[in-house]
């Protein structure tokens, strides 16, 4: 496996998307990590006296209506986005992939049932369901994670099932079957490693979508709650001040767009490398 990793990495260096996306993505993760140790200012430091300060050596991007340092808030917001998107993917993949594997292994009515429920979840307007979930559980980061995570489940289930079905047809599975291995073992030992690259690519896409979803929910006031900053919430607050301090609406949006762009490019690059068959269609 380390060889494979090296291979991927080396090939990656030849892909423009992979390099640009990878750079942005790692910068984003580094910034998120950095916020645990250091931010220029404390984000809970409300100091009305310096509200709407212009960018300066002290406040790199200026301050908001509470006199908080915008740069620091963006940095902590990055962490927030990472956590929400990451856990949501964990939920989606953690439940979705096993479901997909079971559906592919069992076929028959189990498959039918799992896929029906899947379709049903898809048919529901996701945003409305997310709003209802947060209305029941109350707004907050954890509940927005749950809401986003739930909608990741069918995505991963579908993709896991689809790719697993193809693998089940392959000859080495027949060999494994005749060696007396059960469905669970085959799924774990043979199917999963073979669909892993597709799942990883999907995960980067879902990561980007998760960040967008978190921003949307926070924008509606259903996601991350104060004092924890979130990019979506910053945009919401900026909106009421748009005539007074339009600059407040620029930075968080840029942060979202850059991050999502980076993740998407990274995912595209990764797909090119891991799955050359798909390259043609790009």
């Amino acid at each position: 496996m380390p060889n494979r990793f090296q291979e991927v990495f080396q090939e990656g260096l030849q892909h423009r998307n992979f390099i640009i996306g990878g750079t942005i993505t790692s910068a984003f993760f580094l910034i998120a990590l950095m916020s645990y140790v250091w931010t220029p200012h404390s984000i809970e430091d409300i100091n009305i006296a310096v509200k709407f300060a212009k960018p300066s050596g002290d406040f790199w991007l200026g301050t908001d209506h509470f006199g908080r340092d915008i740069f620091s808030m963006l940095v902590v917001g990055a962490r927030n986005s990472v956590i929400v998107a990451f856990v949501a993917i964990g939920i989606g993949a953690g439940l979705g992939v096993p479901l997909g594997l079971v559906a592919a292994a069992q076929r028959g009515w189990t498959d039918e049932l799992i896929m029906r429920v899947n379709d049903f979840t898809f048919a529901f307007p996701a945003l409305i369901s997310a709003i209802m979930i947060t209305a029941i559980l109350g707004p907050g980061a954890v509940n927005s994670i749950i809401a986003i995570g739930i909608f990741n489940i069918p995505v991963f289930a579908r993709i896991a099932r689809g790719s697993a079905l193809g693998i089940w047809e392959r000859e080495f599975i027949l060999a494994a079957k005749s060696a007396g291995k059960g469905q669970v073992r085959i799924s774990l030992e043979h199917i999963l490693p073979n669909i892993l690259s597709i799942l990883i690519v999907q995960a980067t896409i879902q990561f980007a979508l998760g960040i967008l979803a978190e921003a949307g929910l926070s924008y509606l006031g259903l996601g991350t709650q104060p004092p924890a900053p979130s990019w979506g919430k910053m945009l919401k607050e900026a909106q009421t001040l748009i005539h007074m301090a339009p600059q407040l609406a620029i930075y968080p949006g840029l942060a979202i767009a850059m991050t999502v762009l980076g993740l998407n490019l990274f995912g595209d690059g990764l797909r090119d490398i891991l799955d050359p068959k798909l390259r043609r269609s790009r």
Partner: protein
Amino acid sequence: MAITLLVATVVVFLVLEILPGDPASFMLGMEAQEDTLSALRAQMGLDQPALVRYFKWVLGLLSGDLGISYTYDVPVSELIIERIFVSLPLAILAIVLSTVIAIPLGVIAASRHNKSSDLIIMGFSQLGIAIPNFWFAMLLTIVFAVMLRWLPAGGFAGWDAGFFPALTSLLLPTVSLALPQSAILARVTRSAVLEVIQEDYIRTARAKGVSRGSALWNHALRNAMIPVVTIMGLQFSFLLAGTIIIENVFYLPGIGRLIFQAISQRDLIVVKDLVILLSAAVIIINFIVDVLYAVIDPRLRGSGHA
């Protein structure tokens, strides 16, 4: 189809049963007294057992009676119809605009595969996918409403204010919905066209002496439309309900806002009805997409699809 909807009614009903908050106390506020509240609950039929309420509701739906809104005290159907005249035009305008932008761009990008115009178009498309539509909406507001003051920053003039004022208030929302969607659609179109122009029949056409452009537009495009129409169907379903955020940015009295407001005001009957209607709309859109498949691809006609 019917079963999906039936399951949907059960799920929605159960979900709303556990939604905390009492419509009656929301309506009567802080000073309301207990007997007043129970009187109002009785008036709204909330004192009946859940099963009775469920069947009343479903039977009502079947007979086209959506019930009476708790907060507005008017038939829910009336409320929905008023809002649909905002949301539907918005959704249609957005899908039309995004299609008009995306398909030519996608085809151009595909025909100039890996050339600079392809790279530029795909670069913009990446950007369009990455930009959250509500931020884009805010940027448009800053430019066109705050700086230039050409267009209203929000609100809906109403169709009775005249066609153009109404259309003007839908302009920025349409653009902010359409551009990010067109980014996705352009990408899908491009890869679908790239896929199709590898096909043998494109070579056959070219061997006839058909020009590259004509092969692209007359032979490839229609074949490439299947994935494009699939995505358009998904986008349209999203647009019907998913405009909540954009309706919030521009303060448009549409379906998305109605449902958002109904949830926070615990106007449960409106929530229930809307969720079912939206699910039905998604099913109908899927059906339309299936019909379109058959229109596009004769192989799918009369094969008992849909």
